């Protein structure tokens, strides 16, 4: 009672983990080679399924337990090589993953899906399972010899000899663990044991620190053991040590009522020490097949069994050489390998922690405040005489550096690898390709490139559109490709890379490329003004026009003309840009350039009237002081300014924003040449203030969107300064 734990607050952790496990399972399923599945991969899929089941059982999500249980059974056969992995398996498992994901979502939102929801997938899984069973007939008949305990010891030994491969197999799957963890309630403990697939276990008395020591023999490995335990106790509190069977020196309780083995322990040990160590096949079999909680009585405080155990091992040693020489050798490498594996696995686990995003954002906000305070100090210390206040000035410099380092370090917490986005495409392209009768080879590059979490989430939709377009419109069907001398399978390349302060994402295909004539014809049809001698880049930009699609027929995949304009708008909203390169017959590349983070901006501050505005430095090309000859009025189009042999539209900021400025004549002020979305313009401002890194704040959280403004920041003096939205400013400026 006193120790019972309310597991409900582990809920969030479970949902997060289960979600991750499902994603992991999907990528594993997609990666697995059906013809010769890698044993480790099969094990990993099995483990993912098993861990999900464990968590679901703890939270009483019976529908999910049901699905995962059958999956697990099937996967268990597969990983043991007892039934072959087929394409059907993979497909059904992928579907099951989708079902699980939706069930999980239902549980998370406290609106569980009706049991019928899983009916189809359960039927599919069951039919696979029954097929697998008939395949396994031969093996189970061999097993049945073992299932029936024979009264004659000698005969039993013979049986064991005949089924040696199976037994060896099962043995190598058995691990012996010593688990130290905080005490938990008895019913939870029992549930945990069943989840761990404990064949035998013993629980010792409490340690001085209140922890309990559990020794058990089980099929699962250390990593999974921790994963399962993590649903009940925090992973830091769990200490797992793997032990070799021989050192496993405590009287283990049989998970099930032991049939013959315990009835006459003396004789068993005498004659079949080997057998005792291996765990009776019956028990093992049942433990694997039954997922119902094992009703094992709680072990009483451990009686010191060391002596007895030692004698047992001693006897085993003497028996083994006479019995099967090969078995201990077979067994040991397996265990040793696991032992090498498990510390690194545990090490990896402990190098990352799960933190609520709100906390990270709070940290970012706080460090933003710190940066502002630091800027304030900087401003106030400007007037100090460096000779008089040398120590103070040095400290301020150090403070400035430390603040910036701290800010960088904290910003990096929010960074996530692009793999987070890329990982969803193998499945999507696989299904799309199948639906469209195409062959697609998806290649991803630079998946480790990091991007702010906020941007990562917002880039998913545009990228999905682009990938879908590439598969649907870009890549041709195999017959067409073959006719053109290309390989039948089209290649779709997704890449991410850093370039300066930006991240460049590319979606390239080696398909048909864009059809210039068709785009122009369609543009005319839609009433867009186009000319035949337009440069390619301008022609390609047409496909970003709302409602524009050259696709002859609307498929369920794409062709409705929504998409590309949304892609463009979403990317612009993130402060990025899109370019298209395309060669007829050779494919297209869509190149997206994004800032690394939305939270910090390299800015140039300028002043007009009483207000200071921030220009994103990325958009600034140069600033200059115009002379009286460089500007020219053009009727109906406002003024143009000549900058290096180029006439650019002049945008007076005070006119666009309707504010009073110090200067209205260009030759009194400063012009800043800006570029956005391939357009250039010169912005007229009163004066330049400086260059600084600013923390971007949203003004829409308390106000509304303002044309020409992308956000705000807080200056060193505590005042608010607005950040200019260059693309929108250039559009606004075109009216002047």
């Amino acid at each position: 009672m006193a120790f019972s734990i309310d597991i409900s607050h582990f809920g969030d952790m479970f949902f997060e983990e289960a979600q991750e496990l499902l994603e992991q399972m999907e990528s594993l399923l997609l990666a697995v080679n059906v013809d010769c599945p890698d044993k480790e991969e099969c094990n990993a899929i099995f483990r993912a399924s098993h861990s999900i089941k464990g968590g679901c059982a703890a939270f009483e999500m019976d529908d999910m337990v049901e699905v995962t249980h059958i999956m697990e059974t099937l996967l268990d056969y597969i990983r043991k090589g007892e039934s072959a992995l087929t394409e059907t398996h993979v497909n059904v498992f992928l579907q099951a993953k989708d079902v699980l994901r939706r069930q999980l979502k239902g549980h998370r939102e406290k609106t569980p899906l009706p049991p019928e929801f899983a009916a189809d997938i359960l039927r599919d899984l069951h039919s696979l399972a029954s097929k697998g069973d008939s395949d396994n007939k031969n093996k189970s008949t061999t097993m049945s010899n073992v299932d029936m305990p024979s009264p004659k010891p000698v005969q039993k030994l013979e049986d064991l000899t005949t089924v040696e491969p199976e037994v060896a197999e099962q043995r190598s799957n058995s691990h012996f663990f010593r688990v130290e963890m905080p005490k938990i309630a008895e019913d939870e403990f029992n549930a945990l044991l069943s989840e761990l697939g404990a064949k035998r276990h013993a629980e010792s008395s409490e340690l001085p620190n209140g922890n309990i020591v559990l020794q058990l023999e089980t099929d699962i490995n250390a990593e999974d053991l921790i994963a399962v335990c993590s649903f009940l106790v925090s992973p830091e509190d769990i200490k797992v040590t793997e032990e070799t069977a021989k050192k496993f020196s405590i009287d283990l309780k049989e998970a099930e009522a032991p049939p013959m083995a315990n009835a006459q322990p003396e004789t068993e040990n005498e004659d079949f020490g080997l057998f005792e160590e291996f765990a009776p096949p019956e028990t093992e079999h049942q433990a694997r097949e039954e997922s119902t909680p094992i009703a094992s009585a709680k072990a009483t405080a451990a009686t010191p069994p060391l002596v007895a155990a030692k004698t047992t091992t001693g006897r085993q040693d003497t028996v083994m050489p006479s019995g099967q020489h090969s078995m201990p050798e077979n067994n040991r490498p397996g265990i040793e390998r696991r032992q090498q594996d498990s510390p690194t696995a545990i090490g990896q686990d402990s190098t990352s922690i799960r933190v609520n995003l709100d906390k990270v954002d709070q940290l970012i906000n706080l460090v933003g405040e710190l940066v502002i305070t630091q800027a304030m100090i900087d401003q106030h210390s400007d007037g100090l005489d460096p000779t008089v206040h040398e120590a103070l000035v040095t400290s301020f410099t150090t403070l400035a550096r430390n603040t910036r380092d701290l800010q960088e370090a904290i910003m990096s917490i929010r960074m996530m690898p692009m793999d987070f986005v890329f990982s969803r495409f193998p499945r999507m392209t696989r299904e799309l390709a199948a639906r469209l009768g195409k062959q697609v080879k998806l290649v991803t590059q630079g998946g480790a490139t990091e991007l702010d979490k906020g941007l990562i989430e917002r880039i998913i939709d545009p990228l999905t559109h682009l990938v879908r377009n590439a598969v649907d419109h870009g890549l041709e069907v195999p017959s067409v490709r073959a006719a053109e001398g290309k390989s039948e399978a089209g290649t779709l390349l997704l890449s991410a890379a850093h370039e300066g302060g930006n991240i460049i994402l590319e979606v390239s295909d080696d398909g048909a490329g864009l059809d210039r004539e068709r785009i122009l014809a369609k543009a005319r049809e839609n009433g867009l003004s186009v000319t035949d001698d337009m440069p390619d880049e301008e022609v390609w930009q047409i496909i970003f026009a709302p409602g524009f699609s050259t696709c002859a027929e609307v498929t369920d995949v794409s062709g409705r003309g929504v998409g590309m304009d949304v892609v463009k708008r979403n990317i612009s909203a993130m402060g990025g840009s899109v370019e298209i390169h395309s060669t007829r017959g050779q494919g297209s590349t869509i190149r997206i350039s994004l800032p690394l983070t939305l939270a910090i901006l390299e800015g140039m501050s300028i002043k007009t009237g009483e207000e200071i505005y921030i220009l994103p430095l990325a958009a600034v090309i140069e600033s200059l002081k115009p002379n009286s000859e460089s500007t020219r009025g053009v009727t109906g189009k406002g003024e143009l300014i000549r900058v290096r042999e180029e006439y650019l539209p002049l945008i007076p900021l005070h006119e666009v924003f309707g504010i009073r400025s110090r200067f209205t004549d260009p030759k009194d002020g400063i012009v800043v040449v800006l570029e956005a979305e391939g357009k250039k313009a010169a912005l007229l401002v009163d004066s330049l203030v400086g260059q600084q890194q600013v923390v971007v704040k949203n003004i829409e959280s308390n106000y509304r969107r303002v044309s020409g403004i992308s956000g705000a920041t807080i200056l060193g003096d505590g005042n608010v300064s607005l950040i200019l939205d260059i693309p929108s400013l250039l559009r606004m400026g075109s009216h002047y």
Partner: protein
Amino acid sequence: MLANQQLKTDKVISPQEMSMNDGITTQREFLAFRLGPEEYGVDALKVQEIRGYGHVTQIPNAMSFIKGVVNLRGLILPIVDMRIKLRLGQPTYDHTTVVVILNIHGRLSGIVVDSVSDVLTLTSDQMTHAPDCDSVINAEYIIGLGSVGERMLILLDIDKLMVSDEMALMDRNTDQHGF
């Protein structure tokens, strides 16, 4: 256990509940402030704090009564001058100018008023419905009138007012600033 029981008896009565139970005497707190010749009241629970008027950053092309945005401990929020909104003569800004910071469903905004007097507790029988009261504020945004002795308060439905189109403090669902 004890704490739980106490919590139950201390249950907060929401304004909605109050208007539904008109017969029962309930009470509500209002912050009273003055705008021109009239005294107004807003639900005190919506008021986060009261500040002086400082530097305000102008927002380009905004309505004249939207003075701009200010920094409130790292948050950026708009300031509305109610005196301009209600056309109460030429406003002056000095160290006595007061800004009432409102928190309406998590969105912060400040309103500039002539002066803030006090917080008054009104019982339901001190409040009357006044659909056609004579005020520069549209009757739609008035809950009623409150009377305390000689004083008469126009009780504003500040929730409704601050999210209204005419205050222009929020984006509408439709895309007005389209590309």
